[in-house]
Structure formats: structure tokens, C-alpha cells
């Protein structure tokens, strides 16, 4: 009998049967990948297992004993440690406090802060991360926050470790570190459940795979007996179209849309210069903390730069050359940012799918010109169809959607507002293989029609296959620019390694 056995697990939400009598098991010393499209029910299964949803039916056996976790904390006590897809840390606390939250080492009943910090440092060092753990969590990037959540889960005594898309914003190097740790824990006899949309990660770390589709279990396999193509077919229920390869268009034209001149921010980003042509997809590539997000935030006015200017052609002569001080400044110039962290910067929880989707468009039209209901419904249903967003009802709160589907709504939010330049910071984060391709196709199509993009992704392969040109960043400065046939993974890696251009 396996260490963790779930049987007959069902969970219904109004209008959706998220899990239909699913069985799932994972054994000591096993890493099992849980795969499926966006909205297949992966996170729901994990939430039933860890007591987030109490009302699901079915049985859970841990070590042969029936358990019924009432809450994540209770599940933790029972030996199931979890990193949820929407990382739930406390932004205003320090990294150390977050790692030890609820389990602070105490001396005579008082929290021993020296030990708290010591322990957090040790937990982070297991992932080979060396940061100042006394600093506030908000000082760090999404990727580091994700690592903190992992460190926190691993720090607990647990028999089962559950990781719901822990690698969605990590770079190759961090992913490798995480895998090393996972393999070690597996060696110690831990059972690990691993959700990801990155196929190569499954093959490099997992022993076995369980596939869900539309809330139903499709099957269990050992990784070795399930080649890539077959895995994708099992997830989608159909074969995947071939990867469209962009012909890095040399003749992208000289029609410069946006010129960025020495845009910089003290202690955050060295002055950077580049331009974006009309109808071009410009990639930003670099390692974790190399300044991809920072560059986009300066351009979009979200974190205003303190030096340099941008100029936008074709918007009259007045006010087309400036340093954006707020997102509204940039939006006025036709520049929008689809941010990296959907939870803290993207989603408006409590508001409906439809309201979330129309927010940018409405903000652009101003408060008086309300989008009429009929028109709104039309736009929303078009988008839902275009990006295959699964939702029973667009008037439901957006947080009822699966993570990947929320991400798609945020992307649509910008697409319907038709900016001339859209900054996409990890737009495919948490999106499944099938949809990732769709989104890439969509970007390429829109670019052909004249829209411009700045695109960044932790996945180099994706950058290389989507972008016409790539700006390479390292240590918060630009170290190179590749175009046309030069845009290959090797070249980008080489530039990053060289450091100096």
C-alpha cells in the first residue's frame, strides 16, 4: 500500500464538477507529477487533500490511516506539507518570519528571533539561496518569493510534500537547485507530488505521472512508459499541433515605434537603451534578477525611472517624449504592462471575470463612457472563445477560475484595449502546453498586424521562438542584443555568460 492513497474524490463547484471520483496515490521515495490542462482539477485535488476544501467526498489514507484534514495547518500536522499555486505568504513580514510562521522556535515561551533567522537561513540555503532573511518579503522578486514558499514547506517535518506549480517563475538554475533538493528528499523516503506545465521538468525529475482531464483521471504511468507526445495527447485528449517556429523576421522594418533612451532607476536598474519597432516582438532575456521585470516596470511607469526618457512615434509631437511617472502616463502613449505576479498585481479578487477582463478598456474610455452591457458581453465571449478560458459563468468572481485561466483573463484585459506596445512579463506563467502555443500564435499574429510586444519569459526556448529580436540582460544592465538568425538559445546563453557585450 502506498503512503498516500486518495480514492473516489469528488468536488463540485456551482456549474462545474471539478473532480469526478478521482483516485490518486504516491508512495515513499516517489516523485509523482500531476499533469493536466488549465482547469483540469489539479489544484482542486491538492486543496481537497490538504483541507482547504472540507466538503469534498472521498477517502484519504495516509500510512494506511484514514485522515480528514480540516485546514492546511491540520494537514501540516498530519504530515502533508504544501506549496500552493497562489503562494500565500505574508508580504509585510520578513523572509525569516514567513519561513517560520506558526512554528517559531521559542525559548521559555518567547520567540527566539536569533533562532528564527538562523533557521530560515538554513532553510533557504538548502535551496542554495543566499539572501538577507531579515528583509521584508516584498523586497524580493516573485521568483524568490516562490523559493521562500518552498523553503517554508520543506522546513516542516513532513511525510508528503505537495508542490503546485512551484517552478512557474523560476529560471533553469533555480529549477535545478529545487530538483536536487527534491531528489534528496526522495532519497530520505519522502513522497512528493509535483504539478507543472513544463514537460521537460517532468522527465528530468518525476518517477511517475498522473494525468487529469476535465476533473476525471485519465491514468497513471511510469515516466519511462509515457513519451512526451503521448503525455501531451493524454492531457489534451488530442494531438498537439506542431510548434510554429517564428521566422525571425530580418525585414522587420525600420519603423521605430518606441525609443528607450538611458532609462534607469537608482539601485534597481542601470540606464538601458533600446528601441522597439512597429509590429515587432522584442524579447528580454536574462537570469533571475537580471532586470527584466524592472525594465518593463520603468517603461510602463509602474516603478518610474529616475533618469532617461522614452519617445513614441506617431502620437503627434506633443508629449510623445517623456519619462513615464505612472501607468496612466504610459497607457496614454499606448504602452501597457501585463505584470508578472498575477495575484498581487493582476487579479482584482471579488470582481467578476467579465469586470476583470474589461477593466483596462473601461479605464481607457474613462468613467463616463460606460461599455454597454451588450457590447461587454460580446467582447467577453469573444475573448473566452479565443483563448479557451474555461468558466461556467463570467459573472462569477475571477478567483473561482483555475490559475492558468486567470492568467488568460489578464492577458485578454490588455488585448481588448489594443495598446500599440504591450509589455508581457511572463505572460504564459502557469499556462498549459496547448494554450501556451495558442498564446504564442496569437502574439505572432497580432505582431504581423502591426502591434508591438516586449516579451519576457523564464523559458528561454519560448523567448527564442517568439521574438524577432532579443535584448540580453545581466546584473541589471543590458549586455547584448541579438537579431534575426542570431536569436538562438546558445547565443543568448553565451551572451549571459560573457557578461560584457
Amino acid at each position, binding site marked *: 500500500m502506498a503512503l498516500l492513497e486518495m480514492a473516489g474524490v469528488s468536488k463540485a463547484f456551482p456549474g462545474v464538477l471539478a473532480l469526478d471520483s478521482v483516485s490518486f496515490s504516491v508512495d515513499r521515495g516517489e516523485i509523482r507529477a500531476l499533469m493536466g490542462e488549465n482547469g483540469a482539477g489539479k489544484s482542486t485535488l491538492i486543496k481537497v487533500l490538504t483541507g482547504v476544501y472540507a466538503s469534498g467526498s472521498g477517502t484519504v489514507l495516509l500510512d494506511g490511516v484514514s485522515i480528514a484534514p480540516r485546514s492546511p495547518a491540520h494537514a501540516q500536522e498530519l504530515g502533508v506539507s504544501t506549496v500552493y499555486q497562489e503562494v500565500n505568504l505574508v508580504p509585510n513580514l520578513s523572509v525569516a518570519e514567513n519561513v517560520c510562521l506558526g512554528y517559531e522556535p521559542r525559548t521559555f515561551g518567547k520567540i527566539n528571533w536569533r533562532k528564527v533567522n538562523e533557521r530560515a537561513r538554513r532553510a533557504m540555503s538548502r535551496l542554495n539561496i543566499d539572501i538577507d532573511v531579515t528583509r521584508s518579503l516584498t523586497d524580493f522578486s516573485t521568483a524568490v518569493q516562490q523559493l521562500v514558499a518552498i523553503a517554508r514547506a520543506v522546513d516542516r517535518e513532513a511525510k508528503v510534500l505537495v508542490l503546485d506549480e512551484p517552478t512557474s517563475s523560476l529560471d533553469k538554475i533555480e529549477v535545478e537547485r529545487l530538483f536536487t533538493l527534491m531528489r534528496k528528499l526522495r532519497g530520505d523516503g519522502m513522497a512528493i507530488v509535483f504539478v507543472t506545465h513544463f514537460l521537460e521538468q517532468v522527465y528530468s525529475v518525476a518517477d511517475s505521472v498522473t494525468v487529469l482531464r476535465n476533473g476525471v483521471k485519465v491514468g497513471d504511468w511510469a515516466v519511462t512508459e509515457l513519451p512526451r507526445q503521448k503525455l501531451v495527447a493524454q492531457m489534451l485528449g488530442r494531438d498537439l499541433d506542431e510548434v510554429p517556429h517564428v521566422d525571425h523576421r530580418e525585414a522587420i522594418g525600420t519603423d521605430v515605434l518606441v525609443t528607450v533612451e538611458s532609462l534607469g532607476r537608482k539601485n534597481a536598474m542601470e540606464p538601458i537603451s533600446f528601441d522597439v519597432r512597429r509590429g515587432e516582438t522584442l524579447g528580454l532575456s536574462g537570469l533571475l534578477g537580471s532586470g527584466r521585470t524592472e525594465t518593463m516596470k520603468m517603461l510602463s511607469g*509602474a516603478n518610474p525611472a529616475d533618469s532617461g526618457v522614452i519617445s513614441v512615434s506617431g502620437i503627434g509631437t506633443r508629449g510623445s517624449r517623456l519619462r513615464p511617472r505612472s501607468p496612466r502616463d504610459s497607457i496614454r502613449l499606448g504602452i501597457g504592462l501585463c505584470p508578472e505576479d498575477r495575484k*498581487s498585481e493582476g487579479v482584482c479578487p471579488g470582481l467578476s471575470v467579465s469586470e476583470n477582463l474589461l477593466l483596462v478598456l473601461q479605464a481607457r474610455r474613462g*468613467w*463616463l*463612457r460606460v461599455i454597454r452591457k451588450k457590447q461587454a458581453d460580446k467582447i467577453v465571449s469573444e475573448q473566452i472563445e479565443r483563448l479557451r478560458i474555461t468558466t461556467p459563468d463570467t459573472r462569477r468572481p475571477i478567483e473561482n477560475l483555475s490559475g492558468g485561466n486567470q492568467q488568460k483573463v489578464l492577458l485578454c484585459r490588455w488585448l481588448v484595449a489594443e495598446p500599440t506596445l504591450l509589455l508581457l512579463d511572463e505572460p504564459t506563467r502557469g499556462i498549459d502546453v496547448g494554450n501556451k502555443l495558442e498564446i504564442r500564435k496569437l502574439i505572432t499574429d497580432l505582431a504581423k498586424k502591426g502591434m508591438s510586444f516586449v516579451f519576457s519569459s523564464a523559458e528561454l526556448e519560448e523567448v527564442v521562438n517568439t521574438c524577432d529580436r532579443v535584448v540580453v540582460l545581466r546584473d541589471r544592465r543590458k549586455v547584448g542584443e541579438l537579431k534575426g538568425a542570431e536569436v538562438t538559445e546558445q547565443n543568448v546563453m553565451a551572451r549571459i555568460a560573457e557578461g560584457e557585450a
Partner: protein
Amino acid sequence: MKLHPIAYPLIGLALILLFNAFFTPGFYALELRDGRLYGSLIDVLNRATPVLLLSIGMTLVIATKGVDLSVGAVMAIAGAVAALLVTDKVSFLSVSHSVLLVVLIALVVATFAGVFNGVLVGKVGIQPIVATLILMVAGRGVAQLLTGGQNVTFNNPALERLGTGSAFGLPMPFVIFIVVFVLIAVFVRKTALGLFIEATGSNAEAARLAGVASDKMKVAVYAVSGLVAGIAGVIACADIRAADANNAGLYMELDAILAVAVGGTSLSGGRFSLLGSVVGAVLMQALTTTILTRGVSPHATLVAKALIIVAVILLQSPEFRASFARRKHDPARA
């Protein structure tokens, strides 16, 4: 079991009304005298009016994840300004001949106070509780300074009508409230302002990145809160024909916050319901009136009120309902 959020305060209100139908003789009696209705029901509405007015502004403020503690003090300021102007105690501004001007100036001052709060919160970035606490404390002080610590009494039929007159058979304050409510409700719900306010309260950073002028939204909602507090303040002083800087609007910010909470608007911001707050405010006044007419000792009134409010708020909480339902289904834990 999931009802529309406004259902819970409505059920509460219905229960109180039902209770009175059985146990309070004459509660539903209405009498028409001199073209004006009298009775317990009318009394409830009339007494609820100040909190009703405040709760409109408070709802919008809370929807942006804020809170306005200064409304009681702003009421006092507006009342003081109106009373001083109407008695010509301000040497450089003699406008006592025009009550319209008197009221307008008082409202401008009140709105300005709201803008002050809004700038502190929206532009400077001070936490709402702290920012409005400043005016809560200082504002009453200002009102006391204005009136010199004395009640400023006046004799001006036109101004008094705002507090004690009637229109369409209903008390004038309540009629004013209805007009203000409809205007503001249409203003936020028929434009995109409601959406912008909700987006700001739900996730201010996301709203900002989406191009919503979150900071301006914040200034605007505090301004509205100041304005309605001003209206409530003028009515309150017209009602007693005096500006009482020490007591006007005292603790009323708390009643307004409660009305909003009972009405189903989450104190953590986002979705709001103006109508819910109206029901909440009426519910609380009906409760108070009922308890008082039952002859319960005044000391017990507050406790009884608190208990019932806690019940309504608990019922609104999905977590509470869930844990309640779970306990029922889980015999092991029963």
C-alpha cells in the same frame, strides 16, 4: 446555502418588524397630522437619517479598503459653520439672509475636510485609520474653537425646516437622504466609477497598472464622505436649532461603519452595496427603538444591540457558515 449578501440584513430587519407586530402594540400605527405622518416607523426612519447619510460615504470609502473616522467631527464642523453664518457671527461673511448660501458654505467646508482626508490617504499614502483619526480628533477641536465652546443657538425658520420640517408627509431629513442617496447611487452605478472604486479596493496595484486612477478615486470617495457628513451635520444642528460642537455626531462614525458592515459590504474592500448599508442603518435604528420601547434598561441596550449585530455579521461570513455546515455533517466532531 448561499443567499444574496443583502438578504441577511433584510432577514434581520424583517425579524425585528415581525417581533414588533406581535409584541409592540401600536408599532405600525401611522397618523396623519398637518400633512405629516407620525408613528414609530416614521420615528425609526427619522432617527436613522444621520447614520443613513454617513453610511453612503462610508460605504464608498470602505469599498476602497479605507475607513473614515472623521465623519462625526466633520458633522460638528459643518453644524458650527452653519450656525455661525446664520447668526452672522462671522464678521467678514454676512450671508444670514440666504440660508442656501449658509448651507452651501457649510457643505463646501465639509467637502474640503473630506478632500483633506483623501489627499492624506490617496496621495500621501497614510493609512486610512491614522489619516482620518487626525481629523476625528482635530476636527472636533476646530468645531469647538469655532463655537467658542458654547452652544450657538439660532432662530431661523428656513434653516430649522431642514431639521424639523416635512415633505410628502415624511420628515424633511429623510427626504433629503432619499434625494442624496438616489443621486449618489446613480452617479456611481450608472458610470464606471463604481467599477473603479471596487477595483481599487479589491487590488489597488492591479487597478493602477490597469490604468485606473486609484489615487483620484480615493480622494473622491473621502470627499463624498465629507460632503454627506456635512449634510448630516447641517440637519443635526437645524434639528436642535443649535450647533453643539461637543456632541454633534459623537460616535456616529462607529454607527456608520457598523451599518456598512451589517449591510454586507466587506471591510476589506472591493464589492460594495449602497442599498445594503441603507438596510443596515435602518436595521440598527429599528433595533435600538425596539429595545427602548421594550423598556429594557438602557445599560443593556448596547449589549443587546451588539449581540444581534454580531449574529448578522457572522451569518454573512462564508467561513462561519462553512464551519457551521461542516460540524453538522461530521458526526465525529459533533
